């Protein structure tokens, strides 16, 4: 049976989303010190935890991005990446409210200040992840019912 258009679209959106985070995580892995500087500049974490976050986050983005693009545990990856985007969105909103003019450390583009554009982009990421997760969940929840309906009655 050939996959239907919505399923292809869903996978395509997941692959693009996963690839974006792969790239962002890879850049952060290559420039860990710059990323640690960006985390430090937000002044939201105790200094003792900055190194831990700077060490774990790039690998998490990379792993979840690769797994999602490859189709392995897609909902869990979407959950993680959506959560990360949500936390990042919150951090940028707090930073903007505090009037701090710092580099956003957004991953895809270095040397960009926290502002409206990165916030809107990140908001889109949260929406993207949440939408795909909900879509995946509905498909998974409907699958047993469909299978039961397709089963012949004896």
């Amino acid at each position, binding site marked *: 049976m050939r996959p239907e258009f919505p399923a292809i679209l869903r996978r395509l959106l997941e692959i693009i989303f996963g690839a974006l985070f792969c790239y962002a995580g890879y850049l952060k892995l290559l420039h860990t010190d710059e990323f640690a500087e960006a985390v430090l500049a937000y002044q939201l974490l105790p200094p003792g935890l900055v190194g831990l976050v700077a060490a774990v986050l790039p690998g998490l983005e990379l792993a979840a991005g690769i797994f999602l693009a490859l189709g392995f*545990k897609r909902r869990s990856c979407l959950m993680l990446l959506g959560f990360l985007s949500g936390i990042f969105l919150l951090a940028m909103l707090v930073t903007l409210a505090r009037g701090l003019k710092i580099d956003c450390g957004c991953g895809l583009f270095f040397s960009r200040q926290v502002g409206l554009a990165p916030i809107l982009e990140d908001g889109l990421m949260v929406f993207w992840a949440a939408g795909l997760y909900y879509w995946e969940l509905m498909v998974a929840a409907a699958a047993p019912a469909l299978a039961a309906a397709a089963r012949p009655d004896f």
Partner: protein
Amino acid sequence: MLSRRLLGQDLAWAGVILLLAAVLGIWQQWQLVRLSWTGALPAHLEQQRQQRRQVEFQGVKTLNLPQTYEIFQGGQALFVDARDADEYAELHIAGAVNLSPDLLERQGDRALAGIPRDRRIVVYCGLANCNKALEVAEKLQSLKFTEVSAFMDGFRAWDEAGYPAETSE
């Protein structure tokens, strides 16, 4: 009911992926984690930043706060504010002109039309860790301005020292 069970499975696998990334990340970046935990991370990052700058902007002359103020008092130098227009408008070094890296990229030579190539120019940005001053200074050097320096402590240090500043608002 089924959705709740799926949600539980998803959370469990998310935990596994998080754990995997955490173990690998900490193992690979153990030095960073240790430095952070012992409170030595800011000094380490500053040292790394200086090294990166030395490599990336090796041809740019740099100035500290007392040197910059001395030049300011001389009254001959042109001060260039490399921050964005809104930050410049809020407050800048008295007499400075605004020229961000983006503006310089767009306008090139025209941005400093009429300014002699041997005029002393001091470029600055907001903080000691910003690179915009170095980027603009390097670009000006490539446009054949010969007396360009970057003030490395940034406008915040200037303002905190109580040196002359003005607003365009």
